[in-house]
């Protein structure tokens, strides 16, 4: 069900994505941690010019933890993470088709399921590495600059987001299993996810959006308990997607 040779090759192919993804997110994270003080300054300045904007700033700046989280999880990590998940998933299967290597790969004496499981493992591992390395560096930086970071809460939020991104990866893998071209697959999956994210705009339809579940805003802001249901829901969503992708990929003839 798992091939070490394939796993190593996958990670090798991801190495640039891993490097750039981690660097970019880490840079964004460090910048957020560092910019807190600067924004406090701007806040004071704005007080004089635009009191309304100053009010918004106030909320943001009231809590360092909240600030860090708001820049990372619902914003940078989420958006960038989704892009990474899309790229990884669409190149994993559809990418091999348009590069011409799919015939060689499927000709080797391993099952389609083994290919899918091994590739997913590598893809999800790569995603996780990027998410965790960048977040940990950011949090350590923030701790050093201002201290007072609520580690428990931050790590839990990161874990929730990580699982969410794995679900996005798995969902995109369905398109990848059907597609012949990584770019078209990625674009299609992105379009679908974009439309789907619209459900998050209104409170009544929020629960339909996986993105809303990944953010866990209510819990982080203190207005709700830890979203265990969201977590479980995302895991089930990921597993179901993998199952569907496996069914599609196993039947395709290349």
């Amino acid at each position, binding site marked *: 069900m798992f091939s070490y040779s394939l796993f190593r090759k996958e990670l090798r192919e991801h190495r640039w994505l891993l490097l750039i993804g981690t660097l970019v997110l880490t840079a964004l994270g460090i910048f957020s941690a560092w910019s807190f003080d600067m924004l406090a300054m701007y806040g004071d300045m704005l007080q004089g010019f635009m009191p309304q904007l100053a009010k918004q700033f106030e909320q943001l700046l009231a809590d360092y933890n909240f600030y860090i989280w708001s820049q990372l999880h619902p914003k940078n990590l989420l958006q960038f993470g989704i892009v990474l998940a899309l790229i990884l998933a669409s190149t994993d299967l559809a990418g091999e088709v348009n590069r011409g290597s799919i015939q060689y790969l499927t*000709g080797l004496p391993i099952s389609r399921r083994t290919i899918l499981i091994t590739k997913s493992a590598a893809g999800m591992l790569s995603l996780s590495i990027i998410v965790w390395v960048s977040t940990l560096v950011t949090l350590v930086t923030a701790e050093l600059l201002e201290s007072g970071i609520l580690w428990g809460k931050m790590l839990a939020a990161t874990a929730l987001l990580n699982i969410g991104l794995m679900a996005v990866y798995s969902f995109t893998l369905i398109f990848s299993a059907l597609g012949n071209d990584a770019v078209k697959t990625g674009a299609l999956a992105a379009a679908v996810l974009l439309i789907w994210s619209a459900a998050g705009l209104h409170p009544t339809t929020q629960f339909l959006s996986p993105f809303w579940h990944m953010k866990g805003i209510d819990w982080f802001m203190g207005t709700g308990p830890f979203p265990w249901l969201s977590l479980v829901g995302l895991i089930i969503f990921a597993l179901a997607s993998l199952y569907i992708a496996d069914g599609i990929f196993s039947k395709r003839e290349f």
Partner: protein
Amino acid sequence: MDFAIETQGLSKVFNGRHVLKGIDLQVPPGSIFGFIGPNGAGKTTTIRLLLGLLQPSSGQAKVLGLNSQSESIQLRSKVGYVAEENHFYPWMKVEELVRFNAGFYPRWDQERARKLLEMFDLQPGVKVRELSKGMRAQLGLTLALAHRPQMLILDEPTSGLDPVWRRKFLQILTQETADDETTVFFSSHILSDVERVADWLGILINGKLRAMRSMEDFKYNERVVRVVFQHPAPESLLATDGIKSIQRQGSGYLLTITENFDEIYRTLERTPHFVLEAVEQDLEGVFLDYAGEEENDV
């Protein structure tokens, strides 16, 4: 005898098109079986069905006693397969690809791989994308042989290669399979290659297996005889089983024989004649006969 490859009524339909029409293949173990046919005849489809990379529309196939559909993975671990196109992973170096490939075969022989690379003059540090088509074919054969398979299945292994590469490829192939234990099944439309190397022959035209016999049997029986009879030829003689076609040539006949050569020739010898000579056809001539016949059938 347990055949190395055996199919029964193997058929495949693609989008309503009947690509393979119920073929019954029997490949003797230890033989080198040349599977010839024009482009589009269904050779690649046959091979992919044998390996279990495609599902048949009907019929079944067995390779080394294993069912192509249900035991495909086990089958593929015992067979060295070289596809027509060998893209591999262009970014890998030769040695990286070899190491990658090795991970899928428990019976991998790294020493054999190294020796073959040397014989083929393939540099381990060169990237696959820098290799020519000929070199990639050789790399494909190296990967296929290195896990000591009981059988090699090659799809058009020398097509698109210039004579130098073709020669080298065939040299290593005949050398490495000189024992009687490795069966080789290869498809080709390059008849001269098949003539040198194969000891069994299968002709596929338009999805149908038109002939399947040993090369020796084939060359012996598939001959043309020129005969000028002294008296008008008896109808019964010319209608003998095994005479595929008759052509009048001046006062004589050109008989294309496909079976029972000995019997027919002896009969002709006993029939009063002025001229009687047997001409051996080369594979191309015979092949064109079969191909032309198929067209007329349609």
